[in-house]
Every structure is written in C-alpha cells, then in structure tokens.
C-alpha cells in the first residue's frame, strides 16, 4: 500500500477512537497525526504507560513502538513490573539497541531474531491486529503487568 493509502487507513482507524472509548478506558491521545499515534494508558491504580506508535508502512508493516516517559520526549526505561510472561522487555533489541515490546503486532517483535519465523503476514488483516486491536492488546498487557 502506498503512503496515501496507509494514511487513509490510519485516519479511518484512529477516528474510531472516540471520546466514549477514550474516557471509559483512561486512554489519552497526545497526538494522532499520520504516521504517529502517541497515546497514554492511565488509571486502574497503575502507573501511566505512554507509547509512541509509528504506523509508517501500515498495514504492510506493523507499528513500531517507543516507550516514553509520562511527560513525553524522553526515551525511558521500563519500570519494574509484575511477574509473568511479560511483553515489556528490558533487554535491548538486537538491531535497535533499546528496550522493546515483544508482542505480535509490534514491529520490534517481528524483526527480532527469535521471531523471524513468525511473520506479520500471519496476523495482518485479523480484527485483533487492526490499529484498535493492537491497542486493545497493549492495554490489557498494561493492566496485567504494569506497576
């Protein structure tokens, strides 16, 4: 898909993130200008999780995710988290050299050497891997693991 098509799809999917959903879930959108969706998850007694997701090459490639400090701007380390099979990896990504989110639907997962055989093409187009579906999954992981 060319960049115009990617932008049109991004805009259509982001438009579905209405006030009722955002307020009900404690989601705060800081920026939603293609290709960047900068969003925070807040509430439920957890520390804020702020992610900058880049949807360049969407949906041919999944979004890249960068964890930001709550105030934005600074690339931050992940805080200590609850036990479990955790998608928030402190170890540095072999090509990016920074902590990353290890979950299908996030670019850093599919480009990691351990997951090169788990291609994005297996997931692309499934409801759970739409822009909103990926946010759902990240939100549930945050509720489960985040301090």
């Amino acid at each position, binding site marked *: 898909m060319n960049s115009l098509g990617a932008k049109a799809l991004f805009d259509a999917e982001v438009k*579905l*993130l*209405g006030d*009722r*959903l955002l307020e*009900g*879930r404690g989601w705060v959108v800081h920026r939603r200008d293609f290709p960047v969706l900068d969003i925070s998850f807040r509430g*439920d*007694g957890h520390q804020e999780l702020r992610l900058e997701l880049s949807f360049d090459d969407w949906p041919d490639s999944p979004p890249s995710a960068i964890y930001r400090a709550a105030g934005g701007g600074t690339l931050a380390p992940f805080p200590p988290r609850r036990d*479990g*099979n*955790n*998608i928030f*990896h402190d*170890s540095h*990504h072999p090509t990016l050299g920074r902590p*990353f*989110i*290890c*979950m*299908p*639907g*996030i670019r850093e*997962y599919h480009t*990691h*050497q*351990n997951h090169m055989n788990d291609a994005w093409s297996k997931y692309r187009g*499934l*409801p*759970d891997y*739409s*822009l*909103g*579906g990926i*946010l*759902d*999954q*990240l*939100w*549930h*992981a945050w509720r*489960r693991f985040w301090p």
Partner: protein
Amino acid sequence: MSEKKNHIDVAVVTTAGTYPNDGFESVALEQPIKVELDRAARELKITNTSGWIATVGTQTLNVDASYLANNLSGKVDIQWGPPQRGGGAKAS
C-alpha cells in the same frame, strides 16, 4: 437506572466502534451478557471475537452469565476487545 423494571442500560465499547452508537440499550438483567456482545459484533461488523475480554472498570465479566450474576445494574459501558495474544518470551 433503566426505566424498565428488571432491565439494565448497556453499551458495548470497542475500538471498532460503540453499540449502540449513542446512549444505551435496555436489556433484561437475566440475559447472558454474551447476547448483547454478539449483537454488537454483528452491528459493528467485527468478524472474529474469539477470546475477547469484557470488562467494566477493573471487573472482568463472565459473559456466559447474566448481568445480575455479574452484579451489574444501572447504566454500564462494557469495554470489549482482544487480550494480549502472544509474545513475552524471554529475549536473548
């Protein structure tokens, strides 16, 4: 509170849209929650909701049970969507 006795006002909120689009739908308290979720999936044209999680606040709902059995009443927005599906293995 729903104007109908023994009813609850419900909306299903997903990242694909909300059903109903505005306000709430009045349904029987004894109705299994999954009935309204299935309806929302049809209306919002969501093709596969296998394993999706329904929550109200911090409560994860038993969608096979009724609103009453889930201790729900009044007006509720049910947040519905996929859980984290995979990943998380230790990276090397």
